[in-house]
């Protein structure tokens, strides 16, 4: 029987290797896999490259992973925020590398990895500092920049419901990077708030099909912003 349900976050994250590239879903308060990030801190892998839209907020989640000194490099679109002090300190003291990528290019580079595309031309960023040193090409009268896929070893994403094959649905704007990150990594671990029987998800409404998911683990919905619901 194909059963991708892990008994615990610890089980789901066993064996993450040092120097891995870890994609972490979430945008703002929505879709951050807090429990999985905490699990990664507990698991202990270091020298990580993290791919996320941001670079951590406050002192929990990704910021805690950074504060623990586990991250060598971060690939993101928007590191600077009101409460990104952990990242800010590491960056200013030269203890973390930053690759800044426009948000849509970040999503598309991750999709390209998942979809087997070797590289693609995007109009985004042409003529800007972020395209410096990159190949460009004039296509049909428009200038494009050549961008390469971002492959990951591990994706940590937060979904809403899942089944034992690994099918996933999301909740509202918590969907964000989950579906593409799941495609782009050798191993994808998703937290869900509910595990349903096989056939319990509408086959027309499954957002991430089982093929992209390695393990799912149930976590309780927290009465926090990151949990989604106010309680």
């Amino acid at each position, binding site marked *: 029987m194909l059963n991708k349900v892990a008994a615990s976050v610890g089980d789901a994250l066993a064996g993450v290797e040092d120097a891995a590239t870890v994609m972490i879903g979430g945008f703002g308060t929505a879709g951050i896999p807090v429990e999985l990030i905490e699990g990664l801190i507990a698991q202990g892998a270091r020298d990580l490259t993290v791919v996320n839209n941001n670079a951590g907020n406050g002192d929990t989640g990704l910021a805690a992973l950074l504060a623990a000194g586990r991250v060598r490099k971060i690939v993101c679109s928007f590191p600077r925020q009101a409460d990104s002090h952990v990242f800010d300190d590491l960056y200013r003291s030269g203890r973390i590398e930053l690759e800044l990528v426009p948000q*849509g290019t970040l999503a598309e580079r991750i999709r390209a990895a998942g979809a087997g595309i070797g590289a693609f031309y995007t109009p985004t960023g042409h003529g800007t500092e972020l395209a410096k040193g990159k190949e460009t090409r004039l296509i049909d009268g428009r200038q494009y920049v050549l961008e390469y896929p971002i492959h990951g070893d591990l994706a940590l994403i937060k979904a809403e419901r899942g089944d034992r094959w690994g099918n996933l649905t999301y909740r509202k704007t918590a969907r964000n990077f989950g579906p593409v990150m799941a495609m782009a990594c050798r191993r994808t671990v998703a937290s869900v708030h509910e595990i349903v029987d096989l056939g319990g998800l509408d086959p027309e409404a499954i957002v991430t099909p089982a093929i992209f998911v390695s393990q799912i683990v149930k976590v309780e919905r927290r009465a926090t912003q990151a949990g989604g619901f106010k309680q």
Partner: protein
Amino acid sequence: MIYERRTKDQLAARVARDIPDGAVVNLGIGQPTLVANHIASSREVLLHSENGMLGMGPAPHSGEEDYDLINAGKQPVTLLPGGSYFAHADSFAMIRGRHIDICVLGAFQVSVTGDLANWHAGDTNAIPAVGGAMDLAVGAKQTWVMMDLLTRQGNSKVVPVCTYPLTGVSCVKRIYSDLATLECTPGGLRLVDLVDGLTHAELERLVGLPVMPPPRSPAGP
């Protein structure tokens, strides 16, 4: 001459007036967000939020916030009936693929030919952050900028050539400012409208650049 700057709400109302019914619009973080408040509820404009939503509604009532339902500025919002959720790659496919009719962005500088600088004030010590600005600037069918015409020091933010790092090249079509509405054209700036009491000549003095008159009579402020 006596003239008054448009307040932020007047400016937002001015922008809202130019948005056609049925348009798909992305409102950037900050000042552009105000535009939504000035689209009459009798009109249907589809608001797109690049974090994965079309048909965005107003902010929820206090106490009804759902932190899985936020806009690109990470504030709680609502979804209108007919709205939909989608993933980031799909959302930016909409943007890059020129499916957004109008995107309204803030700016540090705009050049006469529509180059936009809005992501980095050029301070080499600053931590850079770009978000979706570059995708929106070049992806929308029309990119509009909404900003004060002058800096606090009285310098024009409309410039011959941007000195701040660029967000996009030749991408701004219109500049909605507190003093005037301008169009960026390959031939340079063209006036759309002025606040009452501000003359064309005074505007040109403030901007320090020639401004072509509107093709026909300008719309009121």
